[in-house]
């Protein structure tokens, strides 16, 4: 089975090609076709994973490009980490495809939608199977393309246009870092293949400082893709896309690719303490930073987006603190519960046709399955004991403790508290309250099934922690699952429950007046509500300065370059005029010119003593 692994991404690609080329004609069956192909892909993935238990590593490459004496390969590379990602991607993608059957049901352009989904799935599967950095980078950009296309799917909306552009450009800034990083790695090691890079790291072939530099550059790529500070601003805006897309791309898979990049290139990061430190600090900062913003946002999807940013920060933090398994495990559980949350939120939005939680004000309570699904997700993300989130979070705390990062541990614990506060704020405001009592539009079955499956996974997947660690440990010796001491488990649970209780008192029992809070901490509230004014800051610094440079160039073009042009034209014109003045019809002028020509030739002859 494993030798057919290369087929896995090709089914979604086929779906993309078929649907984009014959779009309109296949409109009605497009969703089923796409789901079917993704399903095949998923089955292949399962087969490959089954094989991976015995093979542990598999690589098949062929020459993609020859540069001088270096062959750059393309192919598939499978190891436990890749297998895990393959599973997450194809599984969530399949669920999202099924969910979309209902969600996009009547949309006129659903063939295009499914085509884009296929393209994204193809790219994402290709990404996780890349044996080398260049193929990785290519698919990395292609998933960006898929994300861009899907964010801008409602293309008649100005906001969608802006969000799509922003997403592409912001991630591209990160990608530029990744590109530089991989080029530098190439000149250090003469290869881009992961395995060869790791060998080079082991044998210290890097120039001094280069390991840190390249690791940080790779991390910049990850920052862009995973919405880490300071390149996080695109991710909340990306919620302009259809909700299933947010679940697939902007929660479960693509944004996690940054984390995956750090994990896949982990030996490189391990070789540099500085790089790990930076990863950890950025991750921790992003986690708490996004969590605080999430406290006050009113848009259902935006809160989830900030929570995604925050959770991705967690994963980075874990990786930065040496918690390889913890980070990847959190990635896995997060993929389940965040996809669940988004899909449930999508059901709410589809049923109620609104997504501002103040307007919803509890109307969601009529959607039973959605409600329970959402609750499961919320509990999981809040770290409620025995649900998946609590296991992965504890692993992270343990890794931090092991690494001696007490400050970061404090930040992480605080973030855990905030997480349960804002997630339950969201839950209570959507599903508890006295909003209009009319029963909402019912949700199609195709949207319920994925929610149920994911809810189940969100609840139980935490129990596989040990098996998960063993699975990853098969190949990498740094894959160790850290276990927390009891006091830490206790503390984390306390914080999680405390957050839930806190939210309960504010939003359900209304023990504290929210408006009063707003006035007491008005400046804090304003800052948080405006997301720390980061967008405005970028607008006023980077965008304006870019535009200023542009105008500077524009005036250079207009005055300097055009002057050169005018000079050239003027010179030619003058020469022409002189020439035409010589053509005055007078024999003597002609004779004079001829004489001068003769004189010049004779002079050259005399001076050079020959022809030239």
């Amino acid at each position: 089975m494993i030798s057919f692994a290369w087929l896995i991404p090709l089914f979604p690609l086929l779906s993309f090609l078929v649907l984009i080329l014959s779009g309109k004609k296949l409109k009605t069956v497009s969703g089923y076709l796409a789901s079917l192909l993704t399903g095949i892909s998923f089955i292949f993935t399962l087969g490959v994973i089954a094989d991976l238990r015995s093979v542990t590593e598999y690589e098949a490459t062929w020459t993609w490009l020859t540069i001088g004496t270096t062959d750059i390969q393309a192919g598939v590379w499978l190891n436990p980490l890749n297998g895990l990602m393959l599973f997450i991607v194809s599984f969530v993608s399949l669920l999202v495809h099924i969910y979309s059957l209902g969600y996009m049901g009547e949309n006129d352009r659903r063939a295009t939608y499914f085509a884009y989904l296929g393209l994204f799935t193809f790219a994402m599967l290709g990404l996780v199977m890349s044996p080398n950095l260049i193929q990785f980078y290519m698919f990395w950009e292609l998933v960006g393309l898929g994300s861009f296309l899907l964010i801008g799917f409602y293309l008649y909306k100005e906001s969608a246009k802006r969000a799509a552009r922003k997403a592409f450009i912001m991630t591209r800034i990160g990608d530029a870092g990744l590109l530089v990083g991989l080029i530098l790695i190439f000149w250090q090691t003469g290869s881009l293949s992961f395995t060869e890079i790791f060998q080079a790291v082991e044998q210290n072939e890097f120039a001094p400082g280069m390991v840190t530099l390249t690791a940080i550059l790779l991390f910049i790529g990850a920052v862009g893709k995973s919405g880490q500070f300071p390149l996080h601003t695109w991710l909340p805006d990306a919620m302009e896309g259809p909700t299933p897309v947010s679940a697939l791309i902007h929660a479960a898979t693509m944004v996690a690719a940054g984390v995956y990049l750090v994990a896949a290139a982990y030996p490189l990061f391990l070789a540099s303490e500085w790089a790990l430190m930076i990863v950890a600090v950025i991750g921790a900062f992003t986690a708490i930073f996004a969590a605080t913003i999430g406290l006050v946002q009113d848009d259902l999807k935006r809160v989830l987006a900030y929570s995604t940013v925050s959770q991705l920060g967690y994963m980075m933090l874990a990786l930065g603190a040496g918690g390889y398994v913890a980070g990847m495990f959190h990635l896995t559980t997060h993929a389940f519960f965040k996809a669940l949350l988004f899909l449930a939120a999508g059901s709410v939005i589809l049923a109620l046709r609104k997504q501002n939680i103040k307007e919803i004000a509890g109307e969601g309570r009529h959607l039973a399955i959605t409600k329970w699904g959402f609750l499961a997700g919320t509990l999981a993300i809040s770290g409620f004991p025995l649900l998946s989130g609590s296991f992965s979070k504890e692993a992270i705390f343990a890794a931090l403790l092991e690494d001696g990062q007490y400050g970061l541990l404090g930040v992480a614990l605080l973030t855990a508290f905030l997480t349960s506060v804002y997630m339950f704020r969201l839950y209570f405001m959507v599903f508890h309250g006295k909003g209009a009592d009319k029963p909402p539009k019912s949700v199609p079955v195709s949207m319920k099934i994925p929610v149920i499956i994911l809810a189940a996974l969100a609840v139980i997947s935490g129990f596989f922690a040990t098996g998960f660690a063993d699975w990853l440990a098969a190949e990498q010796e740094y894959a160790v699952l850290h276990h927390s001491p009891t006091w830490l488990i206790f503390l984390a649970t306390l914080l999680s429950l405390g957050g839930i209780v806190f939210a309960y008192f504010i939003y359900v029992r209304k023990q504290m007046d929210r408006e009063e809070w707003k006035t007491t901490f008005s400046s804090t509230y304003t800052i948080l509500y405006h997301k720390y004014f980061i967008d405005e800051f970028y607008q006023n610094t980077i965008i304006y300065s870019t535009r200023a440079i542009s105008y500077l160039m524009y005036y250079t073009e207009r005055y300097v370059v055009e002057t050169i042009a005018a000079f050239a034209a003027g010179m030619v014109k003058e020469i022409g005029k002189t020439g035409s003045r010589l053509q005055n019809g007078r024999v003597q002028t002609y004779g004079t010119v001829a004489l001068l020509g003769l004189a010049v030739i004779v002079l050259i002859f005399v001076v050079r003593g020959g022809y030239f």
Partner: protein
Amino acid sequence: MGLLSLFVFSPIVGLVLISLLSNNSSPKIVQRYALIGGFIPLIVSWIVYFIYQRNNRLAENFSWFSYETDSRTLVIDYELELNGFRLALLLLTTLIVTLSILASVKDIKKNPKLFYQWLFILELGMLGVFASDNMFLFFFFFELTLIPMFFLIGKWGHVEREETAYKYLIYNGLGSAVLLIAIVAVFIQAGNANFEAVKDYMSTMDDQAYQIGVIVAFLVAFGVKLPIVPLHSWMVNVHVYAPPAVVMIHAGVLLKIGAYGLLQFGAGMFPETFPLLAVTLAVLGLINLLYGAFLALIQDDLRKVFAYASVSHMGIILLGIAGMNTAGYQGAIFQTISHGLISALLFYLVGVLINRTSTTNLEKLGGLWTTAPVLSGFFLAAALAGLGLPGMSGFVSEFMAFLGVFENLPVFGAIGIIGIILTAVYFLRAILNISFGKRKGKALDKMTDLRNLELLPAGVLLAFIILIGVYPDSLGQLLQITLETFVAGMGG
């Protein structure tokens, strides 16, 4: 007459065919015959390709004239020879000319007969430029491309066509004057105009100052064509005011003569001295890259955006050459071909757009996708190719060019990366402005999408772009030998 000569002069068939038509035959008929005429070089070029693949060598040579002085003989032969790079450019030329004939259907209404006659002369010139193995023959064909373009711009262009044509002629005329002087200077020293012979001669000569002087002259001459900032203002005008079908050829092939010339005359003839100019080239490349990108950012005309995008992309070629290693050269060559395909595609689409909306002003357009999804899709695909999306040819070339630069001049490469980001910004700004958002402009309401035959040029170009992007070795293998000769001569 050998196969190569037959190939180079094959556009004459089309020329004769068109000339035989009566003066008042309808544009449709003229166009049909022009298409036949265009297909002949296209077919011959593929025959040449397959023969070259089999033999790995295709050359032709007979003595043209020689001139004896006291001490030595000056020889100019008629020499045509192929290598992978040239062959790739030749295939590009025939393809783009054929497609531009297809594209000109609705564009050229005034005296189509004359238009196609000039077009075939232009094609003849371009084929000759890329096939000749000799400086003087190169120059001869180089000049032959100059005149048809002048008329094609001046007679069939838009608003400021005459100013543009003159600007074009002045800049390129000066450029080729410099080129001629440099060629003569080299010829007098080496006594032979053959590239290979000159290279052999130059490797035995130690006068470095002279060599650098000549290379700088070549840089100026081809810098006009490429163009290098600040010699680019003519090219922006041509992009904006020439008919889109002609711009396809102009951006697709003619600008490439600059890149080809720089590589052939610089790296090909002075492999030892040329690397001394690496920093100069890198600086020029950076200026081109960033200057073009920043300017493209604020233009409000689609054609101007693409024009400055071309300036910016040429910067990548220069950066690649500045790398002075296999990766860099290969990147520059890939960029040459890839930009040819991409800009031809972009201007084909611009032509279609102008044809329907008669404007390319970004302010006046919007929401194109709602009425013409296929056209918008192609626009987006072309823009993505232009901004270097992996899977398309632009990425491979950018990647290799930067790979090349980073080996020796990492700082320049790092600055150049900013250009990559900006490229994304301006391409997306332009394309999203016209295709996304609310529908603007009355012409868009009753807009028709790309149909039937109109799909062909766009489809073919996009197919090639993706082919090179997905499997770059399809082009790369053709180039290996050329690259080896460029790089082998460099002393360490």
